[in-house]
């Protein structure tokens, strides 16, 4: 019973911490446009937007900018709870609609990449770490290292030049040509492949590292002395422990699912969240920026929390050593 209590306390403390962080973020996002110099309407609506005076007044009333700050905050929070993230004049639409549109595709191509990259990374990394005297282990880790040392956009560009232009195997841009599953797969293969390779490379390196450090611990030695076959040791015992540091990283990957992969989107002309944010920043489209930021924050916090739960389940030691 006691471990359960300890674990719950641990999670509870974390939850409080995350809620506080999120609360601070919401507060920041709320206060910043209202505290910045200049007309709050301009700050809230974004720059380079020409609005007629009457539209400005309607906005002012709708946002309640004339009422005291705490009332505004209540209004703002209510909007948030209704998932109303405001309206973007640059993109001519409600922010929540715009995000929902782009999010779907982004989740698709990044989600798949993360899953492929993680699985491959863990498997290869574990084998490479466990058998690190072999030639192919060095090969894999060298390859992973080289890939991690290359700027991501460069790899994408080279891949595009080779596979799209010279070999003509894949298309130049877009999520699809016609809205058909085959076209989508055809268009997404190369971006997903490249992203997966990057995730996998990083995971291989870390996994290999942790497996190596686990290998020299006492318990694998003990297991070996008991006559347990090598592979069993790896899968049953070491891998479980070695994954733990990786969990936090993978959680982060999922957390940032939403921010898209800007470089992939630029090279392959994909209409995802990365480009949305990039454009929003360059165009000073504050509603989109704040909306996106809040959504990303929630995702990252949730992901972190799940990671905490997972590492608690996998490693009881975390209860006392948060």
């Amino acid at each position, binding site marked *: 019973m006691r471990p359960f209590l300890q674990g719950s306390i641990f999670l509870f403390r974390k939850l409080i911490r995350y809620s506080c*962080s999120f609360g601070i973020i919401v507060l920041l996002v709320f206060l910043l446009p209202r505290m910045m110099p200049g007309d709050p309407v301009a700050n809230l609506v974004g720059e380079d937007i020409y609005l007629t005076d009457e539209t400005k007044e309607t906005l002012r009333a709708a946002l309640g900018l004339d009422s005291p700050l705490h009332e505004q905050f209540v209004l703002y929070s209510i909007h948030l709870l209704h998932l109303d993230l405001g309206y973007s004049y640059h993109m001519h639409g409600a922010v929540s609609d715009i995000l929902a549109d782009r999010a779907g595709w982004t989740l698709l191509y990044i989600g798949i990449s993360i899953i492929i990259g993680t699985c491959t990374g863990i498997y290869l990394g574990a084998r490479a770490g466990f058998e690190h005297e072999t030639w192919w282990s060095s090969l894999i880790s060298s390859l992973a290292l080289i890939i991690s*040392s290359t700027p*991501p956009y460069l790899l994408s560009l080279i891949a595009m030049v080779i596979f799209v232009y010279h070999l003509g195997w894949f298309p130049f841009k877009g999520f699809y040509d016609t809205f058909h599953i085959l076209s989508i797969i055809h268009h997404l293969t190369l971006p997903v492949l490249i992203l997966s390779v990057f995730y996998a490379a990083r995971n291989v390196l870390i996994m290999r590292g942790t497996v*190596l450090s686990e290998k020299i611990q006492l318990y694998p030695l003990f297991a070996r002395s008991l006559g347990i076959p090598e592979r069993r040791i790896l899968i049953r015992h070491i891998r479980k422990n070695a994954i733990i540091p990786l969990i936090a990283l993978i959680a982060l990957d999922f957390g*940032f699912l939403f921010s898209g992969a800007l470089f992939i989107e630029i090279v392959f002309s994909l209409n995802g969240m990365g480009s949305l*944010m990039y454009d929003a920043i360059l165009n000073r489209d504050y509603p989109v920026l704040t909306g996106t930021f809040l959504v990303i924050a929630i995702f*990252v916090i949730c992901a972190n929390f799940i990671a905490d739960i997972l590492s608690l389940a996998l490693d009881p030691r975390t209860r006392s050593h948060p």
Partner: protein
Amino acid sequence: MIPGLSNLNFRRHGYVPLLCIIVLTLLLIIALFPEQIAPYAQNKRFLPYMDPDNAHLLGTDDMGYDILTLLVYATRISLTIGFFAGGLSLLIGTATGILSGYLRGWVDDMIMGITDITLIIPKIPAIILIAAYVRPGIWILILVLGLLSWETTARVVRAKTMQISNAGFIMSARCLGFPSRSIIIQEIIPVIYPVILPKFMLTIAGAMISEASLSFLGLSDPMMESWGKMISDAFTHGGFIREMWWWFLPPTLCICISVLAVTRLGMMYETDEQEIVSE
């Protein structure tokens, strides 16, 4: 005695770390004395878009600059950014990690809360945002890159500090009445060292790649000719369309090699971690 070099055990690690050190030293020399090494002066222009030949081993770029010269002079900038950003990140990370791990309690919670928020901020958009508002310059860039990458170091340092602050020798130091400051400096840091060194290397690598990515997006200082900027120039000025691989591959290789050398050197320590038994 340079701490850490005692680990240069050839039998265990092979000759690779030595290779890394040689490469890094070479790069350092190039960074310090570009005038001696580069074939031409920095602002001498020739015919643009020339193919590599005897006079120009790597050809010329769209403005007629000799690419090899550009490569040599860019070494200083790229390495500076990498090392200083990494160093800044290391400093902040170690300081906060030790504070957090040693003092625990509400200081720990507060610092961890700050790291949470820093973690949540998506890096590239944050950098884009800052670059859009602040006049980009090499030191601003270093500041920003350093400020956005310290949390992993902090976490690792914190975990380690917590782990050893319960160890026997720390306890005894405390009992004996040594002030916290000296405990930290004399006892904790030497033990933490092997943990932060690999992290240091990784942040250097990360900073160099981030800088290259920023140049690609056009957010780095356009007047600053780094390797990343060279690749970005190749991309935006016809280097890719004309398939001038001699323009964008050499800086890529330089980035790769530097990052590789630095990371590989850091990896040297990962197998040496001894589990310190807590009491």
